[in-house]
Protein backbone atom coordinates (compact mmCIF):
# COMPACT_ATOMS: atom_id res chain seq x y z
CA UNK A 1 0.00 0.00 0.00
CA UNK A 2 1.23 3.48 -0.81
CA UNK A 3 1.75 5.57 2.26
CA UNK A 4 -0.65 8.53 2.37
CA UNK A 5 0.60 11.97 1.49
CA UNK A 6 1.42 14.37 4.29
CA UNK A 7 -0.36 17.68 3.91
CA UNK A 8 0.54 20.91 5.66
CA UNK A 9 -2.24 23.51 5.90
CA UNK A 10 -1.06 27.07 6.68
CA UNK A 11 -4.00 29.28 7.56
CA UNK A 12 -4.38 32.05 10.16
CA UNK A 13 -8.09 31.39 10.19
CA UNK A 14 -8.48 28.50 12.60
CA UNK A 15 -12.08 27.79 11.72
CA UNK A 16 -11.35 27.56 8.02
CA UNK A 17 -8.24 25.49 8.68
CA UNK A 18 -10.23 22.96 10.65
CA UNK A 19 -12.92 22.83 7.94
CA UNK A 20 -10.19 21.91 5.45
CA UNK A 21 -8.60 19.45 7.82
CA UNK A 22 -11.92 17.72 8.37
CA UNK A 23 -12.51 17.52 4.63
CA UNK A 24 -9.12 15.98 4.01
CA UNK A 25 -9.54 13.48 6.82
CA UNK A 26 -13.00 12.52 5.55
CA UNK A 27 -11.36 11.86 2.20
CA UNK A 28 -9.00 9.43 3.88
CA UNK A 29 -5.94 11.62 4.42
CA UNK A 30 -4.76 10.99 7.93
CA UNK A 31 -1.51 12.96 7.79
CA UNK A 32 -2.79 16.53 7.92
CA UNK A 33 -0.94 19.15 9.96
CA UNK A 34 -2.30 22.63 10.65
CA UNK A 35 -0.03 25.65 11.18
CA UNK A 36 -1.46 29.01 12.19
CA UNK A 37 1.68 31.11 12.50
CA UNK A 38 4.83 31.63 10.53
CA UNK A 39 7.37 31.79 13.37
CA UNK A 40 9.97 29.13 12.90
CA UNK A 41 8.18 27.84 9.84
CA UNK A 42 11.34 26.73 8.05
CA UNK A 43 12.20 24.41 10.89
CA UNK A 44 8.62 23.20 11.15
CA UNK A 45 8.47 22.43 7.46
CA UNK A 46 11.82 20.65 7.63
CA UNK A 47 10.52 18.55 10.53
CA UNK A 48 7.13 17.81 8.99
CA UNK A 49 8.62 17.23 5.54
CA UNK A 50 5.24 17.64 3.82
CA UNK A 51 4.36 16.42 0.34
CA UNK A 52 1.75 19.11 -0.18
CA UNK A 53 1.44 22.60 1.32
CA UNK A 54 -1.87 24.45 1.21
CA UNK A 55 -1.82 28.18 2.09
CA UNK A 56 -4.52 30.85 2.09
CA UNK A 57 -3.97 33.83 -0.21
CA UNK A 58 -4.61 36.32 2.59
CA UNK A 59 -1.41 35.19 4.25
CA UNK A 60 1.16 38.00 3.86
CA UNK A 61 4.01 35.51 4.06
CA UNK A 62 3.64 33.81 0.68
CA UNK A 63 6.67 35.67 -0.71
CA UNK A 64 8.74 34.47 2.22
CA UNK A 65 7.50 30.92 1.77
CA UNK A 66 8.23 30.82 -1.96
CA UNK A 67 11.70 32.24 -1.41
CA UNK A 68 12.37 29.63 1.23
CA UNK A 69 11.36 26.86 -1.14
CA UNK A 70 13.89 28.16 -3.64
CA UNK A 71 16.89 28.54 -1.39
CA UNK A 72 16.50 26.35 1.66
CA UNK A 73 18.58 23.23 1.83
CA UNK A 74 16.60 22.03 4.82
CA UNK A 75 13.37 21.33 2.96
CA UNK A 76 12.63 19.27 -0.11
CA UNK A 77 11.86 21.67 -2.89
CA UNK A 78 8.16 22.21 -3.22
CA UNK A 79 7.06 23.94 -6.38
CA UNK A 80 3.94 25.90 -7.12
CA UNK A 81 1.01 23.66 -7.85
CA UNK A 82 0.44 25.15 -11.23
CA UNK A 83 3.54 25.00 -13.28
CA UNK A 84 1.64 23.25 -16.03
CA UNK A 85 -0.15 25.87 -18.12
CA UNK A 86 -2.75 23.30 -19.17
CA UNK A 87 -4.03 23.61 -15.61
CA UNK A 88 -5.39 27.09 -16.23
CA UNK A 89 -8.86 26.04 -15.08
CA UNK A 90 -7.56 24.78 -11.73
CA UNK A 91 -5.39 27.86 -11.35
CA UNK A 92 -8.35 30.17 -11.74
CA UNK A 93 -10.54 28.09 -9.49
CA UNK A 94 -7.91 28.15 -6.75
CA UNK A 95 -7.20 31.86 -6.99
CA UNK A 96 -10.94 32.57 -7.07
CA UNK A 97 -11.40 30.52 -3.94
CA UNK A 98 -8.48 32.27 -2.24
CA UNK A 99 -6.08 29.36 -1.85
CA UNK A 100 -2.70 28.38 -3.22
CA UNK A 101 -0.81 25.12 -3.02
CA UNK A 102 2.71 23.81 -3.41
CA UNK A 103 3.73 20.23 -4.01
CA UNK A 104 7.02 18.43 -3.81
CA UNK A 105 8.48 18.12 -7.25
CA UNK A 106 7.98 14.72 -8.85
CA UNK A 107 4.67 13.80 -7.23
CA UNK A 108 2.12 12.43 -9.65
CA UNK A 109 -0.61 14.90 -10.56
CA UNK A 110 -3.36 12.36 -10.09
CA UNK A 111 -2.41 11.95 -6.44
CA UNK A 112 -2.39 15.66 -5.72
CA UNK A 113 -5.29 16.98 -7.78
CA UNK A 114 -8.03 15.66 -5.44
CA UNK A 115 -6.34 17.36 -2.50
CA UNK A 116 -6.34 20.70 -4.26
CA UNK A 117 -9.95 20.22 -5.38
CA UNK A 118 -10.88 19.50 -1.79
CA UNK A 119 -9.10 22.63 -0.55
CA UNK A 120 -10.79 24.73 -3.22
CA UNK A 121 -14.25 23.45 -2.40
CA UNK A 122 -13.76 23.88 1.35
CA UNK A 123 -12.50 27.43 0.85
CA UNK A 124 -15.61 28.14 -1.20
CA UNK A 125 -17.87 26.67 1.46
CA UNK A 126 -16.17 28.84 4.05
CA UNK A 127 -16.53 32.07 2.08
CA UNK A 128 -20.16 31.22 1.38
CA UNK A 129 -20.75 30.80 5.11
CA UNK A 130 -19.04 34.13 5.68
CA UNK A 131 -21.17 35.85 3.08
CA UNK A 132 -24.34 34.44 4.61
CA UNK A 133 -23.22 35.70 7.97
CA UNK A 134 -22.55 39.15 6.50
CA UNK A 135 -25.94 39.12 4.82
CA UNK A 136 -27.67 38.15 8.02
CA UNK A 137 -25.85 40.97 9.78
CA UNK A 138 -26.81 43.55 7.19
CA UNK A 139 -30.41 42.30 7.10
CA UNK A 140 -30.59 42.90 10.81
CA UNK A 141 -29.09 46.37 10.36
CA UNK A 142 -31.59 47.11 7.57
CA UNK A 143 -34.50 46.10 9.74
CA UNK A 144 -33.28 48.43 12.49
CA UNK A 145 -32.98 51.31 10.03
CA UNK A 146 -36.50 50.76 8.77
CA UNK A 147 -37.77 50.65 12.36
CA UNK A 148 -36.06 53.96 13.07
CA UNK A 149 -37.53 55.53 9.93
CA UNK A 150 -40.98 54.31 10.94
CA UNK A 151 -40.48 55.78 14.41
CA UNK A 152 -39.50 59.15 12.92
CA UNK A 153 -42.63 59.22 10.73
CA UNK A 154 -44.88 58.10 13.56
CA UNK A 155 -43.59 60.90 15.76
CA UNK A 156 -43.44 63.72 13.20
CA UNK A 157 -46.67 62.91 11.38
CA UNK A 158 -48.65 61.27 14.14
CA UNK A 159 -49.04 58.03 12.15
CA UNK A 160 -49.59 54.48 13.33
CA UNK A 161 -46.82 51.99 12.73
CA UNK A 162 -48.65 50.41 9.78
CA UNK A 163 -49.37 53.85 8.25
CA UNK A 164 -45.71 54.82 8.64
CA UNK A 165 -44.62 51.63 6.87
CA UNK A 166 -47.17 52.17 4.08
CA UNK A 167 -45.86 55.70 3.57
CA UNK A 168 -42.29 54.41 3.30
CA UNK A 169 -43.37 51.75 0.80
CA UNK A 170 -45.39 54.22 -1.30
CA UNK A 171 -42.49 56.70 -1.41
CA UNK A 172 -40.14 53.91 -2.44
CA UNK A 173 -42.49 52.80 -5.25
CA UNK A 174 -43.01 56.35 -6.49
CA UNK A 175 -39.26 56.98 -6.61
CA UNK A 176 -38.41 53.48 -7.92
CA UNK A 177 -36.16 52.92 -4.92
CA UNK A 178 -35.89 50.25 -2.30
CA UNK A 179 -37.64 50.75 1.05
CA UNK A 180 -34.30 50.49 2.84
CA UNK A 181 -32.87 53.30 0.72
CA UNK A 182 -35.79 55.60 1.47
CA UNK A 183 -35.54 54.69 5.14
CA UNK A 184 -31.80 55.42 5.17
CA UNK A 185 -32.31 58.84 3.52
CA UNK A 186 -35.02 59.66 6.02
CA UNK A 187 -32.88 58.69 9.02
CA UNK A 188 -29.92 60.69 7.68
CA UNK A 189 -32.10 63.71 6.86
CA UNK A 190 -33.76 63.74 10.26
CA UNK A 191 -30.31 63.48 11.85
CA UNK A 192 -29.25 66.57 9.91
CA UNK A 193 -32.37 68.52 10.89
CA UNK A 194 -31.83 67.79 14.57
CA UNK A 195 -28.37 69.42 14.58
Amino acid at each position, binding site marked *: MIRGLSILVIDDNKIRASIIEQGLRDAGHDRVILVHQMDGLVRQIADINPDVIVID*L*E*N*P*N*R*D*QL*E*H*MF*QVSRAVRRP*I*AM*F*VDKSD*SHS*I*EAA*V*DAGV*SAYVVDGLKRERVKPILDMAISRFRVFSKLNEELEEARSELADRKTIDRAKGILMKSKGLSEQEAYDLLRRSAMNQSRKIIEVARSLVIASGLLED
Partner: protein
Amino acid sequence: MDKSLTPVIAGFIPLLDSAVLVAAAEMGFAEEEGIALKLVRETSWANIRDRIAVGHFDVAHMLAPMPIAASLNLTSLAVPMLAPMLLGLGGNAITVSTGLWADMAAAGADTGGDPASTGKALADVISNRRAKAAPLLNFGVVHPFSGHAYELRYWIAAAGLDPDSDVEITVLAPQIMADALATGQLDGYCVGEPWNTAAVAAGTGRIATYKQAIWPDSPEKVLGVTRKWAEANPQTLAALLRALSGAAYWCASAENVEKLAGLLSRADTLACPIEICLPALEGSMRLGRNTMKQVPDFLTFSGGAQMAPMPAHGKWFHEQMVRWGQAERSEDATAEVARIFSPDIYLSALGLENVPRDASIRMFDGRNF
Protein backbone atom coordinates in the same frame (compact mmCIF):
# COMPACT_ATOMS: atom_id res chain seq x y z
CA MET B 1 -20.80 54.51 -11.15
CA ASP B 2 -21.18 56.12 -14.54
CA LYS B 3 -21.92 53.36 -17.04
CA SER B 4 -20.02 55.08 -19.83
CA LEU B 5 -16.74 54.64 -17.95
CA THR B 6 -14.48 51.72 -18.84
CA PRO B 7 -13.71 49.65 -15.75
CA VAL B 8 -10.06 48.88 -14.98
CA ILE B 9 -9.15 46.75 -11.97
CA ALA B 10 -5.75 47.40 -10.40
CA GLY B 11 -4.04 45.40 -7.66
CA PHE B 12 -1.78 47.23 -5.22
CA ILE B 13 0.34 46.61 -2.15
CA PRO B 14 -0.03 49.07 0.74
CA LEU B 15 3.17 51.07 0.25
CA LEU B 16 3.72 54.81 -0.18
CA ASP B 17 4.47 54.38 -3.86
CA SER B 18 0.98 53.10 -4.54
CA ALA B 19 0.24 56.86 -4.36
CA VAL B 20 -0.16 57.41 -8.10
CA LEU B 21 -2.78 54.66 -8.41
CA VAL B 22 -4.59 55.83 -5.28
CA ALA B 23 -4.63 59.46 -6.44
CA ALA B 24 -5.81 58.46 -9.93
CA ALA B 25 -8.74 56.56 -8.43
CA GLU B 26 -9.61 59.04 -5.66
CA MET B 27 -8.91 62.47 -7.16
CA GLY B 28 -10.84 62.13 -10.40
CA PHE B 29 -7.91 61.62 -12.81
CA ALA B 30 -9.19 58.23 -13.97
CA GLU B 31 -12.77 59.47 -14.53
CA GLU B 32 -11.47 62.39 -16.58
CA GLU B 33 -9.98 59.85 -18.96
CA GLY B 34 -13.15 57.76 -19.04
CA ILE B 35 -11.93 55.08 -16.67
CA ALA B 36 -13.55 53.66 -13.57
CA LEU B 37 -10.40 52.62 -11.72
CA LYS B 38 -11.08 50.06 -9.02
CA LEU B 39 -8.21 49.36 -6.62
CA VAL B 40 -7.84 46.03 -4.86
CA ARG B 41 -5.40 45.86 -1.94
CA GLU B 42 -3.27 42.73 -1.81
CA THR B 43 -1.19 41.12 0.88
CA SER B 44 1.75 39.68 -1.09
CA TRP B 45 3.59 40.13 -4.37
CA ALA B 46 2.86 36.47 -5.06
CA ASN B 47 -0.85 37.30 -4.99
CA ILE B 48 -0.31 40.25 -7.35
CA ARG B 49 1.56 37.96 -9.74
CA ASP B 50 -1.06 35.19 -9.57
CA ARG B 51 -4.08 37.45 -9.86
CA ILE B 52 -2.77 39.41 -12.84
CA ALA B 53 -1.82 36.13 -14.52
CA VAL B 54 -5.34 34.69 -14.20
CA GLY B 55 -6.94 37.99 -15.22
CA HIS B 56 -8.45 39.13 -11.90
CA PHE B 57 -6.46 42.33 -12.31
CA ASP B 58 -6.06 44.28 -15.54
CA VAL B 59 -3.02 46.14 -14.24
CA ALA B 60 -1.01 46.15 -11.01
CA HIS B 61 1.44 48.02 -8.83
CA MET B 62 4.56 45.86 -9.28
CA LEU B 63 8.18 45.68 -8.25
CA ALA B 64 10.13 46.81 -11.32
CA PRO B 65 11.88 43.44 -11.83
CA MET B 66 8.63 41.42 -11.62
CA PRO B 67 7.49 41.90 -15.25
CA ILE B 68 10.98 40.82 -16.33
CA ALA B 69 10.93 37.73 -14.11
CA ALA B 70 7.46 36.81 -15.42
CA SER B 71 8.34 37.36 -19.08
CA LEU B 72 11.57 35.34 -18.79
CA ASN B 73 9.66 32.51 -17.11
CA LEU B 74 11.62 32.75 -13.86
CA THR B 75 8.57 32.47 -11.59
CA SER B 76 5.48 30.33 -11.35
CA LEU B 77 2.39 31.45 -13.28
CA ALA B 78 4.75 33.29 -15.61
CA VAL B 79 3.11 35.19 -18.46
CA PRO B 80 4.61 37.75 -20.86
CA MET B 81 4.28 41.22 -19.37
CA LEU B 82 5.06 44.87 -19.98
CA ALA B 83 6.07 47.73 -17.69
CA PRO B 84 4.61 50.64 -19.66
CA MET B 85 5.05 53.24 -16.89
CA LEU B 86 7.10 53.90 -13.75
CA LEU B 87 5.00 54.58 -10.65
CA GLY B 88 7.74 56.18 -8.56
CA LEU B 89 11.46 56.83 -8.28
CA GLY B 90 13.41 56.05 -5.11
CA GLY B 91 11.55 55.54 -1.85
CA ASN B 92 13.55 52.65 -0.34
CA ALA B 93 16.09 52.68 2.43
CA ILE B 94 18.36 50.26 4.24
CA THR B 95 17.66 50.22 7.96
CA VAL B 96 19.84 48.46 10.50
CA SER B 97 19.17 47.65 14.14
CA THR B 98 20.35 50.25 16.65
CA GLY B 99 22.84 47.68 17.95
CA LEU B 100 24.41 47.11 14.54
CA TRP B 101 24.37 50.87 13.94
CA ALA B 102 26.35 51.45 17.15
CA ASP B 103 29.05 49.10 15.81
CA MET B 104 28.96 50.73 12.37
CA ALA B 105 29.15 54.23 13.87
CA ALA B 106 32.19 53.15 15.89
CA ALA B 107 33.70 51.99 12.59
CA GLY B 108 33.20 55.48 11.17
CA ALA B 109 29.88 55.19 9.31
CA ASP B 110 28.67 58.51 7.88
CA THR B 111 25.65 59.74 9.83
CA GLY B 112 24.10 61.23 6.70
CA GLY B 113 23.64 57.90 4.92
CA ASP B 114 26.53 58.01 2.42
CA PRO B 115 26.44 54.47 0.98
CA ALA B 116 30.21 54.16 0.41
CA SER B 117 30.95 55.13 3.99
CA THR B 118 28.22 53.07 5.66
CA GLY B 119 29.06 50.09 3.42
CA LYS B 120 32.71 50.25 4.44
CA ALA B 121 31.70 50.46 8.10
CA LEU B 122 29.50 47.39 7.63
CA ALA B 123 32.45 45.54 6.07
CA ASP B 124 34.62 46.43 9.07
CA VAL B 125 31.96 45.24 11.49
CA ILE B 126 31.55 41.99 9.59
CA SER B 127 35.30 41.44 9.52
CA ASN B 128 35.46 41.92 13.31
CA ARG B 129 32.54 39.57 13.81
CA ARG B 130 34.22 36.94 11.66
CA ALA B 131 37.36 37.18 13.82
CA LYS B 132 35.15 36.50 16.85
CA ALA B 133 33.27 33.70 15.02
CA ALA B 134 30.00 35.59 15.56
CA PRO B 135 27.02 34.39 13.54
CA LEU B 136 26.28 35.96 10.13
CA LEU B 137 24.23 39.14 10.11
CA ASN B 138 20.71 38.59 8.82
CA PHE B 139 19.18 41.04 6.33
CA GLY B 140 15.63 41.12 5.01
CA VAL B 141 14.25 42.08 1.62
CA VAL B 142 10.66 41.95 0.41
CA HIS B 143 11.09 39.74 -2.62
CA PRO B 144 13.90 37.97 -4.47
CA PHE B 145 13.03 39.88 -7.67
CA SER B 146 13.00 43.39 -6.23
CA GLY B 147 14.87 46.67 -6.35
CA HIS B 148 15.32 46.15 -2.59
CA ALA B 149 17.21 42.91 -3.06
CA TYR B 150 19.44 44.38 -5.76
CA GLU B 151 20.12 47.65 -3.92
CA LEU B 152 21.05 45.80 -0.74
CA ARG B 153 23.27 43.37 -2.65
CA TYR B 154 24.87 46.18 -4.67
CA TRP B 155 25.67 48.14 -1.50
CA ILE B 156 27.11 45.09 0.25
CA ALA B 157 29.11 43.97 -2.80
CA ALA B 158 30.48 47.49 -3.39
CA ALA B 159 32.00 47.29 0.10
CA GLY B 160 33.96 44.22 -0.98
CA LEU B 161 31.64 41.69 0.65
CA ASP B 162 29.83 38.74 -0.88
CA PRO B 163 26.08 39.06 -0.17
CA ASP B 164 25.71 35.31 -0.68
CA SER B 165 28.26 34.22 1.91
CA ASP B 166 29.13 37.18 4.19
CA VAL B 167 25.53 37.85 5.27
CA GLU B 168 22.22 35.97 5.25
CA ILE B 169 19.46 37.47 3.11
CA THR B 170 15.90 36.37 3.74
CA VAL B 171 12.52 37.44 2.40
CA LEU B 172 9.87 38.97 4.69
CA ALA B 173 6.68 40.95 4.10
CA PRO B 174 7.33 44.73 4.39
CA GLN B 175 4.91 45.32 7.24
CA ILE B 176 6.66 42.65 9.34
CA MET B 177 10.21 44.04 8.92
CA ALA B 178 10.22 46.57 11.76
CA ASP B 179 8.98 43.96 14.25
CA ALA B 180 11.55 41.44 13.02
CA LEU B 181 14.25 44.04 13.66
CA ALA B 182 12.91 44.76 17.13
CA THR B 183 12.91 41.06 18.09
CA GLY B 184 16.42 40.50 16.75
CA GLN B 185 15.24 38.15 14.02
CA LEU B 186 16.83 40.59 11.53
CA ASP B 187 19.89 42.85 11.83
CA GLY B 188 18.85 45.02 8.92
CA TYR B 189 16.57 45.27 5.91
CA CYS B 190 15.92 47.10 2.69
CA VAL B 191 12.29 48.12 2.28
CA GLY B 192 10.13 50.92 0.87
CA GLU B 193 8.68 53.66 3.02
CA PRO B 194 6.98 53.97 5.44
CA TRP B 195 8.57 50.83 6.91
CA ASN B 196 11.99 52.40 7.58
CA THR B 197 10.50 55.42 9.32
CA ALA B 198 8.39 53.01 11.37
CA ALA B 199 11.52 51.38 12.86
CA VAL B 200 13.27 54.72 13.46
CA ALA B 201 10.15 56.07 15.16
CA ALA B 202 9.97 52.96 17.32
CA GLY B 203 13.60 53.51 18.37
CA THR B 204 14.68 50.08 17.11
CA GLY B 205 16.23 51.01 13.76
CA ARG B 206 18.66 53.43 12.12
CA ILE B 207 18.60 54.25 8.41
CA ALA B 208 22.10 53.42 7.10
CA THR B 209 21.58 54.54 3.52
CA TYR B 210 18.82 54.89 0.94
CA LYS B 211 17.97 54.13 -2.66
CA GLN B 212 18.31 57.73 -3.87
CA ALA B 213 21.94 57.71 -2.65
CA ILE B 214 22.71 54.27 -4.13
CA TRP B 215 21.17 54.80 -7.56
CA PRO B 216 19.80 58.35 -7.96
CA ASP B 217 16.36 58.75 -9.57
CA SER B 218 15.93 55.04 -10.10
CA PRO B 219 12.64 53.30 -10.82
CA GLU B 220 11.09 51.36 -7.97
CA LYS B 221 7.53 50.25 -8.78
CA VAL B 222 6.08 50.04 -12.24
CA LEU B 223 2.64 49.62 -13.68
CA GLY B 224 2.58 45.94 -14.64
CA VAL B 225 0.29 44.66 -17.37
CA THR B 226 0.13 41.39 -19.25
CA ARG B 227 1.06 41.69 -22.88
CA LYS B 228 -2.23 40.00 -23.70
CA TRP B 229 -4.27 42.70 -21.94
CA ALA B 230 -2.17 45.53 -23.39
CA GLU B 231 -2.69 44.21 -26.90
CA ALA B 232 -6.42 43.67 -26.43
CA ASN B 233 -7.05 47.08 -24.80
CA PRO B 234 -4.66 49.63 -26.36
CA GLN B 235 -7.02 52.60 -25.98
CA THR B 236 -7.92 51.83 -22.40
CA LEU B 237 -4.24 51.44 -21.56
CA ALA B 238 -3.37 54.76 -23.22
CA ALA B 239 -6.18 56.52 -21.33
CA LEU B 240 -5.04 54.92 -18.08
CA LEU B 241 -1.45 56.08 -18.65
CA ARG B 242 -2.66 59.65 -19.21
CA ALA B 243 -4.72 59.43 -16.02
CA LEU B 244 -1.75 58.08 -14.07
CA SER B 245 0.55 60.76 -15.45
CA GLY B 246 -1.94 63.42 -14.32
CA ALA B 247 -2.16 61.76 -10.91
CA ALA B 248 1.65 61.61 -10.69
CA TYR B 249 1.90 65.38 -11.31
CA TRP B 250 -0.67 65.89 -8.57
CA CYS B 251 1.28 63.65 -6.17
CA ALA B 252 4.50 65.53 -6.99
CA SER B 253 3.06 68.92 -6.08
CA ALA B 254 4.19 70.07 -2.63
CA GLU B 255 0.83 71.71 -1.95
CA ASN B 256 -0.93 68.33 -2.14
CA VAL B 257 1.37 66.46 0.20
CA GLU B 258 -0.91 66.62 3.26
CA LYS B 259 -3.92 65.56 1.26
CA LEU B 260 -1.92 62.71 -0.29
CA ALA B 261 -0.68 61.59 3.12
CA GLY B 262 -4.31 61.64 4.25
CA LEU B 263 -5.40 59.43 1.34
CA LEU B 264 -2.58 56.98 1.97
CA SER B 265 -3.13 56.73 5.70
CA ARG B 266 -6.76 55.65 5.28
CA ALA B 267 -7.88 52.28 6.58
CA ASP B 268 -8.56 51.02 3.05
CA THR B 269 -5.13 52.06 1.71
CA LEU B 270 -2.05 51.84 3.97
CA ALA B 271 -3.85 52.08 7.33
CA CYS B 272 -0.79 53.84 8.73
CA PRO B 273 -0.52 57.03 10.86
CA ILE B 274 -0.06 60.22 8.81
CA GLU B 275 3.12 61.16 10.68
CA ILE B 276 4.71 57.88 9.52
CA CYS B 277 3.64 58.47 5.88
CA LEU B 278 4.74 62.12 5.70
CA PRO B 279 8.56 62.11 6.03
CA ALA B 280 9.26 60.28 2.75
CA LEU B 281 6.61 62.32 0.90
CA GLU B 282 8.13 65.57 2.18
CA GLY B 283 11.72 64.42 1.69
CA SER B 284 12.42 65.16 5.32
CA MET B 285 13.83 61.94 6.69
CA ARG B 286 14.67 61.04 10.24
CA LEU B 287 17.65 58.72 9.72
CA GLY B 288 18.13 58.12 13.42
CA ARG B 289 16.73 59.30 16.70
CA ASN B 290 18.56 62.63 16.54
CA THR B 291 19.47 62.86 12.88
CA MET B 292 17.20 64.61 10.43
CA LYS B 293 18.19 64.89 6.79
CA GLN B 294 16.56 66.74 3.94
CA VAL B 295 16.50 64.43 0.92
CA PRO B 296 14.20 66.29 -1.49
CA ASP B 297 14.23 63.46 -4.04
CA PHE B 298 13.92 60.64 -1.52
CA LEU B 299 10.74 59.47 -3.27
CA THR B 300 9.71 61.18 -6.48
CA PHE B 301 6.47 61.17 -8.38
CA SER B 302 6.32 63.27 -11.46
CA GLY B 303 4.13 62.96 -14.49
CA GLY B 304 5.30 63.33 -18.06
CA ALA B 305 8.57 62.04 -19.45
CA GLN B 306 10.12 61.31 -16.06
CA MET B 307 7.79 58.35 -15.57
CA ALA B 308 8.68 56.78 -18.93
CA PRO B 309 10.38 53.41 -18.56
CA MET B 310 13.68 53.11 -20.42
CA PRO B 311 15.40 49.99 -21.76
CA ALA B 312 18.44 50.98 -19.66
CA HIS B 313 16.33 50.55 -16.49
CA GLY B 314 15.28 47.07 -17.52
CA LYS B 315 18.83 46.24 -18.48
CA TRP B 316 20.12 47.23 -15.04
CA PHE B 317 17.59 44.98 -13.30
CA HIS B 318 18.34 42.11 -15.66
CA GLU B 319 22.09 42.56 -15.11
CA GLN B 320 21.49 42.14 -11.38
CA MET B 321 19.43 38.99 -11.98
CA VAL B 322 22.35 37.57 -13.95
CA ARG B 323 24.90 38.80 -11.41
CA TRP B 324 23.16 37.00 -8.55
CA GLY B 325 22.44 33.81 -10.42
CA GLN B 326 18.69 34.27 -10.95
CA ALA B 327 18.82 34.47 -14.74
CA GLU B 328 21.02 33.52 -17.68
CA ARG B 329 22.45 36.10 -20.02
CA SER B 330 21.25 35.72 -23.60
CA GLU B 331 20.58 37.86 -26.63
CA ASP B 332 16.92 36.88 -26.56
CA ALA B 333 16.59 37.90 -22.94
CA THR B 334 18.27 41.26 -23.59
CA ALA B 335 15.89 42.00 -26.45
CA GLU B 336 12.90 40.90 -24.37
CA VAL B 337 13.91 43.14 -21.46
CA ALA B 338 14.25 46.13 -23.81
CA ARG B 339 10.71 45.46 -25.06
CA ILE B 340 9.30 45.21 -21.52
CA PHE B 341 10.83 48.56 -20.55
CA SER B 342 10.13 50.30 -23.85
CA PRO B 343 8.83 53.87 -23.38
CA ASP B 344 6.87 53.76 -26.67
CA ILE B 345 3.36 53.03 -25.36
CA TYR B 346 3.66 55.64 -22.61
CA LEU B 347 5.16 58.41 -24.71
CA SER B 348 2.68 57.93 -27.53
CA ALA B 349 -0.28 57.89 -25.09
CA LEU B 350 0.89 61.25 -23.73
CA GLY B 351 1.81 62.63 -27.15
CA LEU B 352 5.37 63.25 -26.02
CA GLU B 353 7.98 63.50 -28.75
CA ASN B 354 11.73 64.02 -28.84
CA VAL B 355 12.23 62.51 -25.43
CA PRO B 356 15.85 61.33 -25.13
CA ARG B 357 15.96 57.55 -24.82
CA ASP B 358 19.55 57.08 -23.77
CA ALA B 359 19.03 57.12 -20.02
CA SER B 360 22.45 56.65 -18.48
CA ILE B 361 22.77 55.06 -15.10
CA ARG B 362 25.45 56.10 -12.66
CA MET B 363 25.75 54.26 -9.36
CA PHE B 364 27.16 55.71 -6.13
CA ASP B 365 30.45 53.85 -6.60
CA GLY B 366 31.01 55.50 -9.97
CA ARG B 367 30.05 52.53 -12.11
CA ASN B 368 28.02 53.31 -15.21
CA PHE B 369 25.45 51.06 -16.82
